[in-house]
């Protein structure tokens, strides 16, 4: 029950992301409507997932990192400001104007700079940078606890220059920093949640298509026998004589250079993954259903249907296939996990999802971070994936026990 609840939660989040994403895209494409820029409605779109919300590699849950890291984070915020203040134009007034515009353009998600005159910004940025330099001069910041108040002062300065809005938008801003930021300063939480949609989308499409395709082929092979059976068996034994990962790689390669290899079109760029996985995963259900239909077709009710004079295709679809539904369910849940896991592996190898976030890409991006001791990104991806896969593992075990008790798993 708990597992089903977890799956329902994931499905709800996935559908929500998919829905808002699709509504927005469709609205833009057709111009029929525009999704209002309300903070909640577009909290989980691709744009939000790719948006910079803070300095790179901030830890989550508001945990204070080591002093050295805090200096680095403060430095990266201040650099962002300094870049915009230092404008090399002779004319002082023009320089001020352009700097003010640039500063006003700073956005860390919802947090924006306050409406100060440019001179104050210059002064504060310079003071904070000087402070940081002084701290850095001491060296080995971790070993000098007496520096802490000075670091805190710089952090307070930065906080005053980056004001989060009040209300729902402010809460959203803090929520986005809840699990920290990745290497580019993007919100790990938003990316991990958005990846649910990617995973569920791939899992659903692949499992559905593969199970349907595989069962129909398997049932047809068993039912008609003869050359149909030979052809199907040859096809699946052929395809299964390559390890999944190699076959997936080759099938993904099949699409390089085609219109599906276009990183500017996130919807099309998933097609190679769908195709590769569907072509690989239909074998499992096909085998199982073929075996089952072999047994079923000798049963009395099929013979009775034949005696009545129904056509063979009708008997197959109306009588034989529905009796393999339990196997289809089991295989669906098995393939769903397999698809999600393989998507993650493919993305990790750089062959899968190329646009937008996915757990595989997050894990891949976190490899150098792990070596430096930053575990938030890999942790988030793992935990989010863990609960989904665990829930599906439990459900598919339960399905197996209920429908196919003889099977030794």
């Amino acid at each position: 029950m708990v597992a089903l609840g977890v799956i329902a939660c994931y499905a709800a989040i996935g559908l929500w992301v998919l829905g808002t994403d699709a509504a927005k895209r469709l609205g833009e494409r057709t111009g029929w409507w525009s999704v209002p820029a309300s903070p909640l409605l577009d909290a989980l779109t691709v744009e939000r997932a790719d948006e910079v919300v803070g300095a790179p590699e901030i830890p989550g849950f508001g945990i204070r990192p080591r002093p050295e890291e805090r200096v680095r984070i403060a430095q990266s915020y201040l650099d962002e400001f300094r870049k915009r203040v230092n404008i090399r134009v002779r004319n002082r007034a023009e320089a001020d104007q352009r700097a003010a515009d640039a500063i006003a353009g700073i956005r860390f998600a919802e947090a924006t700079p306050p409406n100060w005159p440019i001179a104050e910004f210059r002064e504060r940025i310079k003071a904070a940078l000087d402070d940081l330099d002084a701290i850095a001069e001491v060296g080995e910041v971790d070993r000098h606890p007496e520096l802490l108040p000075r670091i805190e002062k710089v952090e307070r300065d930065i906080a005053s220059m980056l004001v989060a809005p009040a209300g729902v938008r402010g809460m959203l801003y803090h929520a986005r920093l809840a699990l920290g930021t990745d290497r580019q300063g993007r919100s790990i939480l938003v990316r991990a949640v958005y990846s649910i949609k990617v995973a569920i989308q791939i899992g659903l499409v692949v499992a559905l298509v593969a199970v349907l395709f595989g069962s129909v082929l398997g049932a047809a092979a068993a039912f008609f026998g003869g050359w149909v059976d030979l052809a199907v068996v040859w096809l699946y034994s052929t395809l299964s004589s390559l390890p999944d990962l190699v076959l997936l790689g080759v099938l993904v390669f099949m699409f390089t250079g085609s219109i599906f290899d276009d990183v500017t079109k996130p919807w099309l760029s998933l097609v190679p993954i769908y195709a590769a996985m569907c072509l690989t995963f239909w074998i499992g259900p096909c085998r199982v259903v073929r075996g089952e239909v072999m047994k079923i077709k000798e049963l009395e009710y099929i013979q009775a249907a034949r005696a009545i004079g129904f056509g063979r295709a009708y008997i197959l679809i109306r009588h034989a296939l529905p009796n393999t539904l339990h196997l289809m369910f089991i295989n669906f849940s098995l393939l769903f996990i397999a698809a999600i896991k393989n998507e993650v592996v493919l993305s990790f190898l750089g062959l899968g999802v190329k646009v937008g976030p996915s757990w595989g890409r997050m894990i891949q991006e976190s490899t150098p971070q792990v070596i430096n001791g930053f575990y938030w990104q890999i942790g988030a991806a793992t935990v989010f994936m863990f609960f989904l896969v665990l829930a599906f593992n439990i459900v598919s075990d339960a399905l197996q026990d209920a429908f196919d008790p003889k099977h030794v798993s």
Partner: protein
Amino acid sequence: MWSFIARRLLASIPVYLGIILIVMAALRVSDPVNAYLGKNATKEQIELKRHAMGLDRPFAAQYVEFLGRIVTLDFGTQTRRYESWKYEGQNVGKKLAEAIGPSLSITLPELCLTTLVSITIGMLSAYYRGRWIDRWLMFLVVLGMSVSVLVFIVLGQKFGSSWLKSALGIGWFAASGYEPWLAWSKEPLWGVLPYPTRFALGTWAHYCLLPVLIYVVVAIGYDTRFYRAVMVEETTRDYITTAIAKGASKPKIMFAHMLKNALIPIITRVMITLPFLIAGSILLEYQFRIPGMGKLIIDAIKDRDFPIIQTFTAVFAGVFILSNILTDVLYALVDPRVRLS
């Protein structure tokens, strides 16, 4: 026995022809030369490359030619070149020969260790069925299965090499890389038997032991559940009751009676895990920068190195089919009831 093997080999020929056909067709769906050279290449460059690879000939001719290469194991010689695109001047055959050693030096230990460890755990679990140790083991196993393989690999790499070194000062494991640890003599003994001239187990452990251990941890999760189920089923058989009635000790029943009879599902399982083994090794080789076949083929797919992809998939398929035949032969050896006909 031999006629059985011969028949199985003959029966797998159409399957092998089929997989080569499918792979070759799939690789040519979008033009591999275009994919490799990119949009900025001139017409002449593309034509040259296409001609050098023989891609301008009809598909049937290419198919026959490639089959010929496989049958004669000719992936390039000094005079008749069959070069990789990315590594210019290197024959595909040379790359292949270089990659087999590293691959085997992690896959074989993986296979042996995993089987040993997971059978032991499965038997322990079946022995203590229903008690807390069994429950905890199975709980851990399901947990482990739900965490991505990648996490084990990435964290295992971190903690096994750099953390172990910095925190405990144990520098046994390299974070990545590979060095040949086994060298064979140029001139075989008595003309047939090659013998190793270098056998550096320490070097092997330095580079390969950590990936092998990580693989074992990952694979235990999948295998143990199965072995436990097999063993549990075996405990309900009549011959076990007989053995208990005769007064045989429990360890004796476990090892002498049950293990022998459970060998058939175990062999099936070991062979079923082969694709998993290869896939797992691909990831491990990739992450640990071990220049085996897995890393090479992933790199080739990324670099669009067509000759390498084509050859390596063919080799993978061949190994796979042969290992399936080996399974059937092993069945017959283990279980006299299996008739080889």
